[in-house]
Structures are given as structure tokens and as C-alpha cells.
């Protein structure tokens, strides 16, 4: 019985490690898992020597749960050199096109599934049916600052460039993304209503969907070149994580068209946000 319990608990430990390993970047995963598996062997060996097996197995479980933190750290800090962003989101047109296709699919399924009829029926009974959805959007916008910074970064405006047009284009792009995200989340959650309502989590799912979508829009906007609106690439770490005093520590991104560099601090503060550095045309030969 005790042996069976030990086997069950070690299986659970390995399952936790396997699950955490999914968070680790692919090229690091095998070595990461080998290390944690080996370390777990020592933890379990220590457990077997003890008298209170259940207590010591809890120790092994606690050890394995720490793997998630390690995996997340690796995911966040081990950026692949020369990594390229997703092709269908790279340029502003590709991004808008992709969102438009997803929105069209979500709306199509909304009109060709039972969701639309359900909504119309509910609207007839309760004309104020739409208000909960509007309320969800307002609540999601209120929650948003807790999940990500609302600032879009500092962009210096050179006097000889059409800065106003550039800023206007950025805001238009942001507005279009928000406009396309709304039908995706609204119709998407209604399309999935039969599944979500079965779990009783539909209102929460809609709210979480809005928050995640709005967060993605802001994060995506901050990772784009302010000139050409393409996603920035080639992340390079600068500074040392364990020596944060008196030194800047963060990541530098590059516009593949050579428009400039973006410096993103690891720990954003009120006095240190992400900064854009324009490169003058003399750098052009490096990027052609």
C-alpha cells in the first residue's frame, strides 16, 4: 500500500515537471527536464529514508511546484537570438488582415449557429440584454492597468520628421485593433456559449477574454516600430539581472527596416519606461 502510494506520488511529481517543461523554450526543454528529473530523484531518495512518507512526499510535491517558477523565468529571460515574430502579425497590414479574418470567422459562426437566435430571443424578453456586455467591457478596461502598463512608451519627435502623421498612424492602428478585437471576443465567447454555460463560467470567460485581448493589443502596440509599425525583432539582453543597482537592465529590440532601436527596461518604473531611439538614414546600409 505504501509502495503504491509512493509510486502514485512520484508519478504526480513527474507529471508536474512535464507540465512545467511545456513553459520552457523548446531548445532548453530537454536539458531543463533532465536537471529537474535528476534533482527530484535526490529529493525522493531523501523522502524514502524518512519515517513520515506522506509528509516527505509533500516536500517532493513542493519541490516540483517550484519548477513552474523556474520554467517561467527561462521563458521570460531566454529569448532566442534572431528570433522572428509571427509572420501573420509582422507588418501592420498582415496584423489587421489576420484580425479581420478571425473576426469574420467569429461573426460567421455567430450568425450560423444557435447563438444568434438565443441572443435575439433574450433581447425580446429583456431589451437591456446588451448592458451586461457593455459592463463587461468597462470592467475589463478597469482591470487592464492591473495586468499591464497602459503607457505606450516614450517616442522622441525629431523636428524634421512628420511626427504628427506618424503618431496619427499609430493611433489609427491601435483603434483598428481594438475595433477588431471586440467582435472576436464577443462573438467568440457567444459561439462557445454551449460549452462555457455547461461549466457555468460564461460571464467570467467573457471578462477574462476581454482583459486578455485588450492586454494583447497594448503589448503588441508597444513592440512595434513607431515609423513602419512592423513588429520589432532581434531581442538582445543588456545589463545583468543580479546587479540591478546603478545599471540599466533590460532588452533591446531592433526594427528590421533600420528605423531604430527600442529599449525595454526589465522592471518598468515611473522614471524608466521603454524608450525608442531613432536611427538616422546613414544606418540604412546595414539593414538593406
Amino acid at each position, binding site marked *: 500500500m505504501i509502495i503504491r502510494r509512493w509510486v502514485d506520488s512520484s508519478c504526480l511529481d513527474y507529471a508536474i515537471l512535464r507540465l512545467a517543461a511545456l513553459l520552457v523554450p523548446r531548445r532548453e526543454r530537454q536539458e531543463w527536464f*533532465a*536537471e*529537474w*528529473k*535528476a*534533482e527530484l*530523484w*535526490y*529529493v525522493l531518495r531523501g523522502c524514502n529514508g524518512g519515517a513520515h512518507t506522506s509528509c516527505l512526499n509533500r516536500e517532493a510535491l*513542493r*519541490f*516540483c*511546484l*517550484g*519548477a*513552474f*517558477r*523556474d520554467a517561467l*523565468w*527561462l521563458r521570460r*529571460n531566454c529569448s532566442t537570438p534572431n528570433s522572428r515574430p509571427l509572420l501573420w502579425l509582422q507588418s501592420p497590414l498582415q496584423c489587421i488582415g489576420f484580425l479581420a479574418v478571425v473576426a469574420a470567422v467569429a461573426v460567421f459562426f455567430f450568425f450560423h449557429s444557435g447563438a444568434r437566435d438565443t441572443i435575439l430571443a433574450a433581447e425580446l424578453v429583456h431589451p437591456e440584454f446588451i448592458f451586461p456586455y457593455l459592463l463587461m467591457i468597462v470592467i475589463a478596461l478597469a482591470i487592464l492597468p492591473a495586468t499591464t502598463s497602459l503607457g505606450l512608451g516614450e517616442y522622441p519627435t525629431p523636428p524634421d520628421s512628420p511626427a504628427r502623421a506618424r503618431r496619427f498612424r499609430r493611433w489609427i492602428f491601435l483603434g483598428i485593433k481594438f475595433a477588431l478585437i471586440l467582435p472576436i471576443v464577443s462573438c467568440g465567447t457567444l459561439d462557445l456559449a454551449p460549452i462555457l454555460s455547461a461549466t457555468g463560467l460564461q460571464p467570467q470567460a467573457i471578462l477574462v477574454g476581454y482583459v486578455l485581448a485588450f492586454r494583447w493589443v497594448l503589448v503588441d502596440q508597444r513592440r512595434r516600430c513607431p515609423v513602419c509599425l512592423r513588429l520589432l525583432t532581434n531581442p538582445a539582453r543588456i545589463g*545583468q*539581472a*543580479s*546587479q540591478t*543597482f*546603478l*545599471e540599466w537592465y533590460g532588452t533591446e529590440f531592433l526594427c528590421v527596416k533600420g528605423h531604430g532601436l527600442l529599449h525595454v527596461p526589465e522592471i518598468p518604473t515611473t522614471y524608466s519606461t521603454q524608450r525608442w531611439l531613432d536611427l538616422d538614414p546613414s544606418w540604412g546600409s546595414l539593414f538593406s
Partner: protein
Amino acid sequence: MAIEPKLSHTAAMILQAIHCGCVYGYNVMETTGLPSGTVYPALRRLEQDGLIRSQWERQSVADAGQRPPRKYYKLTRSGRVILEASQKRYPLLAKLVSPEVE
């Protein structure tokens, strides 16, 4: 005047533990009393900063001991320099993490 890099107390404890002969992650955990979710990311950060380096044990050695191969950690030269500076900054460090007695 050269700027002296400063480590957090946790990072200094881990460096001290490695210096004292705790050469793999679980060993560092046992010595420092820190949880796995703190020790392993700190080890990776210290390695990324060039203060420690890691090396996998040879499979034949592990097979002879009938155990999985360990990933060993070792202080680099700059790690040793930083540890000395940290020992001055945190005088109780040597008492908190004393050399391992096998």
C-alpha cells in the same frame, strides 16, 4: 573609483553555498533553506551573469553510482570576486552558510 556590483542577499547566499561545496541545486536548497522556486532561477541568473558555470556529470560516473547524472555548479573567477565583496557587505553570510561537512 570602480563601481562595486551588488548582489541581493539571496544571490549572495547561493554563491556562498556553492563556494562551500554545495555543487548541485538540491544541495544548495538543503544548505540555504531556500525553496526550489527561488534557488533554480537564481542559479540560472547567476550563470547568465557569468558568476557561476555549470557542467553535467559524465554518464559513466553517474551509472557507476547508480543514480542520474547531476548538473554541477562552480564559481567562476568573477563569481569569486563578487562573493568576496558580498561577504564584506553581508558579514553574517559565512555564518549562515558554512562549509559543507561530508
